[in-house]
């Protein structure tokens, strides 16, 4: 799934930096600021919602668009994502076009 997302974004001309899990994503995000974060809820070591909370705690990521991907249809997790400052919530499986159009809407 990560490969699919990465390929979709790279094809659309975005520069993509991939991370294996939430911990690595946070390290990368601290080192080289990115303009958009696409994170799955389910990741090893640190899940997407925890990553989201950590990122929102960093000055550089106060307003960066953060999209959360999930296969779980859970109103509770969606509420957590929303209150933690997620920009958007995408339920898998989705169309690559849907992802791209969503990204275009949130990157200003």
């Amino acid at each position, binding site marked *: 799934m990560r490969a699919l997302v990465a390929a979709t974004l790279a094809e659309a001309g975005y520069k993509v930096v991939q991370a294996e899990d939430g911990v690595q994503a946070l390290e990368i995000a601290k080192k080289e600021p990115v303009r958009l974060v696409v994170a799955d809820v*389910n990741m090893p070591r640190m899940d997407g919602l925890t990553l989201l909370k950590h990122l929102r705690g960093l000055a550089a990521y106060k307003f960066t668009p953060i999209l959360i991907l999930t296969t779980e249809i859970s109103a509770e997790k969606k509420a957590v994502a929303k209150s933690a400052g997620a920009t958007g919530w*995408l339920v898998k499986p989705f169309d690559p076009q849907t992802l791209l159009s969503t990204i275009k809407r949130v990157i200003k």
Partner: protein
Amino acid sequence: MSSGTAESAFGSTSDRGVRVVWDPGLKAEVARILPGEYYATTGEVIVSTVLGSCVSACIRDPERGIGGMNHFMLPSQSSHSAQEDAAAARYGLAAMEQLINAVLKLGGRRGKLEVKLTGGGRMFANRMDIGQRNAEFALDFVANEGLRLISHDLGGENPRRVLYYPASGRLRVQKMPVIESRRVEAEERQLVDRLREPEAGSVELF
């Protein structure tokens, strides 16, 4: 650990409430999954389902005895294009990913995972063989992900009644009479309707 599921005495995780009931004949707790569902456990729960053209992947960490099973089908298509194939494969990917994530969440280790595949029957001789497509998808997925496939029982014309014991890795497959095909296939059709449910692919911006 669970996400909206009926609790067994063991750690378990599944999508919307998969029911776990005591089966007096098997003398064990049994989680019966329907098309589109999965169930993973750390305990002695048996996962059961009935397969027509759908495929079930049984995935476990043998050293820890943590594992589970899914039940999926790729949506059928009217025509064959690369784009439609990709769209269909996403449903399969999501089904496999959900199960693997569930097993990892319960403590299974990715590098240790072993896989058994079953199902993918050809339900009607005159229909497009969607069973074969499901089976090919599953085999490709396992190969692409570098997972260890230890057995597979795919294809054929009989529906299958399947019992998987994640704790021991045992998989019991009972071939049902071909005459049951129509009923089994009708049940699996419900999955296709569920795949079309509005939430999949939905986007919500906060």
